[in-house]
C-alpha cells in the first residue's frame, strides 16, 4: 500500500515541473521550523496545575522545560546523521512521510505527557520522536533540490531552508492563538493545542510527500549544459557519505557551520536582554521615578513588548537571509560568500558594543539584522557548498552528517553565552560590558571559521567514487567518473 513512497515510484513524469519541488520542500520545512517557536509553550507549561501561577514543587520549572528544546535539537543532528544514507536509498518521498509521522506524532505523544503531567513523556514525544522528524525532514529535500536545480543549487536549497526560518513565524502565533482559544478556567489549553498542531502539521507535510518527485537519471534543465570537468571547487565527481568524513574539507565545513551557528546563537539568545538592558530600560527609567513601583512595572512591560518585536524582526531577517545569500552564492561562488559571512560578521559583532556606548538603537538593530541574515545564509548555503565539493550523489546524507555541528553548537552555544553573561553580571559590569566579551568572542570564533574557509580546496581524487564503485539508488545521478 505504501509502495508509492519508494524512490522507484517517485520518478517524475514527463510533464512534471521542477518548480513543484521547492513548495514540496517548503511544506516540510515550514512545519519543522516550528521548533524555534517552542518557547511559546514554556510559560503555559509551568502553570499546568496552578493555571494562573506556577505551583512550587508541583508545576514544571523553566529548567526542566529547557531540556525539551535541547533534546529535540540534539536528536535532529543525530537522526540526520544516522538516517541520511537511508534517506538517499529510499528517496525523499518516504523520508518526508516518516518525518511527517514522527513530527506530528511527537506532538501527540507530548500532548499525552502534558495530560498525564509526566515530563519524561514530553521529552520522549517532542524531544526524541519530534527530533527524529526534524532531522529526517530537514535533510529530505536537499538532495532532490540540487538534482532538479543543477544550474541554481544555492537558490533551490535557500528556498527550502528559508522555510525552516519561517516556520517559527507561523508556529508562534498559531500556538498562541490556539492556546487562547482552548484555555478554560481549569486549563491553560496546551493539550488540545498540541493535538491540533500535530494533526495540522502532519496533514500539511503530506502535501510535500505527494508533490515531491526525483528527476529521471541524466535529466538536465532545458538549455543547461553541465560542466564536463571539475572547475575550481565545483566537482563533477562524487564522494560517498561514508567517505566524506575522511576528507579535510568535510571537517573544515563542520567547523565553519559550528562557529556560524554559535555566533548566531550569541545574538539570538541575548537579543532580548541586550536591547532591554543596553537601551530601553535605562531610557525608560530615566523618564520616571525609580521608586514608583507602578511606573517601573509599566516600563518593564513596554520594554518587553519592544524587545519581543525586535526578536520577531530578527526571525524575519534570519529567514530572508537564507534565500538572499544562498541565491547570491550561485553567482559569487560558495567560498566567496562564506568569506562575506565570516569576515563581515566579525566587523558587525565588534561594532555592537560601540553601538551600545553610542546609545544608538537604529545602529544596534541594523547590525543585529545584518548578522542574522548571515547566520541564516550560513545554514542555507552549506548544502550547495557540499554539492560543489562532494557531488550530488549522496549530498543529502553528507549534509545530514555535517549538521551534527549544529547539535553541538546548539547545546554548547547557549551555555557559553549565558555563562559569560552570568559571570559579568555577578561582577557588576555595566550593561554594555555585560555583552561586550561575548561579542568579541564571537568575532574570534568567526575569524577561526574564515581561516578554515581559506583552507577549503577541491577534494582529492582518491576520495572520489570510481565508475564501478557507486551504484546509484533509484534515479540518483549516474555513476561518477573518476577525475
Amino acid at each position, binding site marked *: 500500500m505504501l509502495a508509492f513512497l519508494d524512490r*522507484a*515510484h517517485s*520518478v*517524475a*513524469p*514527463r*510533464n*512534471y*515541473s*521542477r*518548480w*513543484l519541488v521547492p*513548495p*514540496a520542500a*517548503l*511544506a516540510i520545512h*515550514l512545519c519543522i521550523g516550528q521548533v524555534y517557536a517552542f518557547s511559546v509553550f514554556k510559560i503555559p507549561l509551568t502553570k499546568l496545575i496552578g493555571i494562573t501561577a506556577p505551583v512550587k514543587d508541583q508545576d514544571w520549572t523553566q529548567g526542566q522545560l529547557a531540556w525539551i528544546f535541547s533534546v529535540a535539537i540534539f536528536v535532529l543532528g543525530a537522526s540526520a546523521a544516522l538516517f541520511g544514507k537511508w534517506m538517499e536509498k529510499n528517496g525523499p518521498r518516504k523520508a518526508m512521510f516518516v518525518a511527517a509521522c514522527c513530527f506530528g506524532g511527537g506532538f501527540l505523544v507530548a500532548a499525552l505527557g502534558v495530560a498525564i503531567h509526566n515530563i519524561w513523556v514530553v521529552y520522549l514525544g517532542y524531544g526524541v520522536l519530534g527530533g527524529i522528524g526534524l532531522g529526517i525532514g530537514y535533510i529530505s529535500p536537499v538532495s532532490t533540490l540540487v538534482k532538479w536545480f543543477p544550474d541554481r543549487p544555492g537558490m533551490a536549497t535557500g528556498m527550502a531552508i528559508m*522555510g525552516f526560518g*519561517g516556520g517559527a*513565524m*507561523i508556529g*508562534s*502565533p498559531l500556538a498562541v492563538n490556539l492556546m487562547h482559544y482552548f484555555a478554560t478556567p481549569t486549563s491553560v489549553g496546551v493539550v488540545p493545542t498540541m493535538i491540533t498542531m500535530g494533526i495540522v502539521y502532519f496533514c*500539511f507535510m503530506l*502535501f510535500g510527500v505527494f*508533490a515531491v518527485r526525483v*528527476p*529521471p*537519471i*541524466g*535529466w*538536465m*534543465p*532545458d538549455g543547461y549544459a553541465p560542466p564536463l570537468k571539475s572547475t575550481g571547487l565545483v566537482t563533477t565527481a562524487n564522494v560517498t557519505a561514508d567517505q566524506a568524513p575522511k576528507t579535510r574539507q568535510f571537517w573544515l565545513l563542520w567547523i565553519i557551520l559550528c562557529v556560524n551557528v554559535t555566533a548566531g546563537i550569541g545574538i539570538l539568545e541575548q537579543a532580548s536582554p541586550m536591547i532591554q538592558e543596553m537601551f530601553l530600560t535605562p531610557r525608560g527609567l530615566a523618564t520616571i521615578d525609580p521608586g514608583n513601583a507602578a511606573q517601573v512595572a509599566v516600563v518593564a512591560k513596554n520594554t518587553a*513588548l*519592544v524587545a*519581543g*518585536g*525586535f526578536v*520577531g*524582526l530578527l*526571525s*524575519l531577517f534570519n529567514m530572508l537571509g537564507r534565500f538572499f545569500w544562498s541565491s547570491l552564492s550561485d553567482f559569487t561562488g560558495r567560498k566567496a560568500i562564506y568569506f562575506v559571512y565570516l569576515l563581515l560578521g566579525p566587523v558587525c559583532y565588534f561594532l555592537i558594543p560601540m553601538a551600545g556606548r553610542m546609545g544608538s538603537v537604529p545602529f544596534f*538593530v541594523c547590525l543585529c539584522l545584518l548578522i542574522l541574515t548571515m547566520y541564516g545564509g550560513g545554514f542555507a548555503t552549506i548544502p550547495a557548498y557540499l554539492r560543489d565539493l562532494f557531488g550530488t550523489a549522496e549530498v543529502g546524507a553528507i549534509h545530514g552528517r555535517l549538521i551534527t555541528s549544529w547539535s553541538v553548537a546548539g547545546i554548547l552555544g547557549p551555555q557559553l553565552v549565558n555563562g559569560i553573561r552570568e559571570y559579568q553580571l555577578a561582577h557588576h559590569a555595566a550593561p554594555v560590558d555585560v555583552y561586550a566579551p561575548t561579542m568579541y568572542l564571537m568575532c574570534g570564533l568567526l575569524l577561526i571559521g574564515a581561516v578554515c574557509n581559506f583552507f577549503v580546496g577541491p577534494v582529492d581524487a582518491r576520495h572520489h567514487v570510481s565508475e564501478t564503485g557507486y551504484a546509484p539508488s*533509484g*534515479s540518483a545521478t549516474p555513476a561518477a567518473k573518476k577525475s
Partner: protein
Amino acid sequence: MSTQPGRSSDPEPTQVPGATGFVILSWLWVGLPLAWGVYQTILKSMALFH
C-alpha cells in the same frame, strides 16, 4: 520547465497533472501560511518603531 524524455532505467513514469495551475496552487499552499506568519511578525515588530 519540464522533464525531458528519460534516459532512465526507472519504471515508466505515469502522467500526472503538472500544469501551471498546479504549480501556482502549490506555491499558494505554502505561500499563504508563510505570508500570514510574516504579517504577524511585522505587526509584532511595529512596537520597535513606536
